């Protein structure tokens, strides 16, 4: 088995294995019919099709699961959940895999998990999201000088329309600190 390298885990740790147990329960009765794959609007971009991903979850092939980009490409359209002949909560299972990747700070998913993490941290601080603030922190973490350029065109148009206030938010206008702390405590206790 591979060991984590550096200070960021690159492969599954024991915690991730626990997460896989809960996902396995969700897809336990998968009959491998492939309706999910046939329904998925993002399947064309995936390395494993959704059906193949569930098979690997069931076979406990955690490295194959957490090296795949498949679950991060789920855009939560719920077509697979709607159509699954076994009635499995497949979109929720995709979410559970995203949560595991986020919690474990798996390096290969960082461009996506960092985006969500900075979004949600902005919500923690202010109650409502502040795009300017969370994108600034996101860019700072990603350290890719080209990345902000990708957003600059749209950003300027939104500023011109007065839809993106260029002010840094005041701290603790409506803090959700207590709720976030309690949620973390409850998740930890599980």
């Amino acid at each position: 088995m591979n060991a984590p390298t550096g200070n960021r885990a690159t492969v599954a740790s024991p915690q991730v294995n626990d997460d896989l147990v809960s996902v396995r329960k969700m897809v336990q009765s998968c009959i491998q019919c492939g309706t999910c794959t046939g329904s998925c609007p993002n399947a064309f971009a995936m390395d494993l099709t959704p059906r193949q991903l569930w098979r690997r979850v069931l076979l406990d092939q955690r490295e194959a699961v957490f090296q795949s980009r498949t679950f991060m490409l789920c855009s939560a359209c719920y077509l697979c959940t709607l159509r699954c002949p076994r009635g499995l909560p497949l979109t929720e299972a995709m979410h559970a895999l995203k949560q595991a990747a986020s919690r474990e700070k798996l390096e290969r998913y960082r461009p996506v998990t960092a985006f969500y993490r900075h979004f949600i941290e902005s919500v923690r601080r202010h109650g409502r999201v502040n795009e300017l603030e969370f994108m600034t922190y996101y860019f700072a973490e990603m350290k890719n000088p080209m990345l902000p350029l990708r957003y600059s065109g749209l950003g300027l148009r939104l500023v011109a329309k007065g839809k993106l206030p260029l002010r840094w938010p005041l701290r603790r206008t409506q803090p959700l600190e207590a709720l976030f702390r309690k949620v973390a405590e409850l998740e930890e206790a599980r």
Partner: protein
Amino acid sequence: MKYHYYPGCSLEGTAREYDQSTRALLTALEVELADIENWTCCGASAAEATSELLAMALPARNLALAEHQADSMDVLVPCSACYLNLKTVAEKMQSDAPLAARIHAALGEEGLHLKGRLRVRHLLDVLATDLGPAAIRARAARPLVGLRIAPYYGCQCLRPYADFDDPEMPTSMEPLIRAAGAEVFPWKMGGRCCGASHMSTQREVGIALVAGILEAARGADAVVTVCPMCQMNLEAFQGLVGRTAGKDLHISVLYLPQLIGLALGLDAATLGLDLNLAFHGEVKRKIAAADGAGPAGGSRDESPAHGRRITAVEEAC
């Protein structure tokens, strides 16, 4: 008719015109909205990718605040992502007792309690079901004759909860579009995914999904949406997506309440049409011409008020 109103973060910023036009239209239809005081983010698509319980606690907080204000009204939500997050909590409170207990424990930290009895309703559901096309037709002072509209529903107002429409082949917008005097552009992309946040996090995939939708919409005058994320994806990247596809994919994209509001004779500024990123000249001219045709489709109204309306529409972007 009165509802709790949950605008959500987008409607305060990047989708201000959705908030403006929703409020203006519902006022014109004699619907009263009670804003949920001190509402906070529903978690968007970020909480569900981070923590299962947080993705429940954030929307639960808002439902608890609404219940505290009044527990007899439905909660009206214009954003499809907010709608699904709030609705999921409302459903799970009834069906998943262990999860409900953890939600209670989290909310207790803020001194809040959630009974989970409020019904969460999407704006489209309220327009299609509670108000209906007749209410719009009766007030359509400016039927949008000659306009072909592609109804775009997106995903999360349709699925996984098939509450008010067919989750595979949605049609709930069609009678509303016709009641506004416009035609429905026949297409099959209304319930196809726009890629949600892929345009930010995995752009090449987002571009491919948006390209499919915009290509299918060619031939329509405008696409109409009921979600700020769908709207942003379809309106903001048309140049980029078109260059990638090697085609001109520019098309006007309006929020449904903006379209219906125009038919009701509300002015462009009230509906926030100056804030849209894709509202093109040809459609503005068609709307102005429909205005001139008048409700009965008769001779052109040459009154100064009519002239002002045309100018307002044409200058609105």
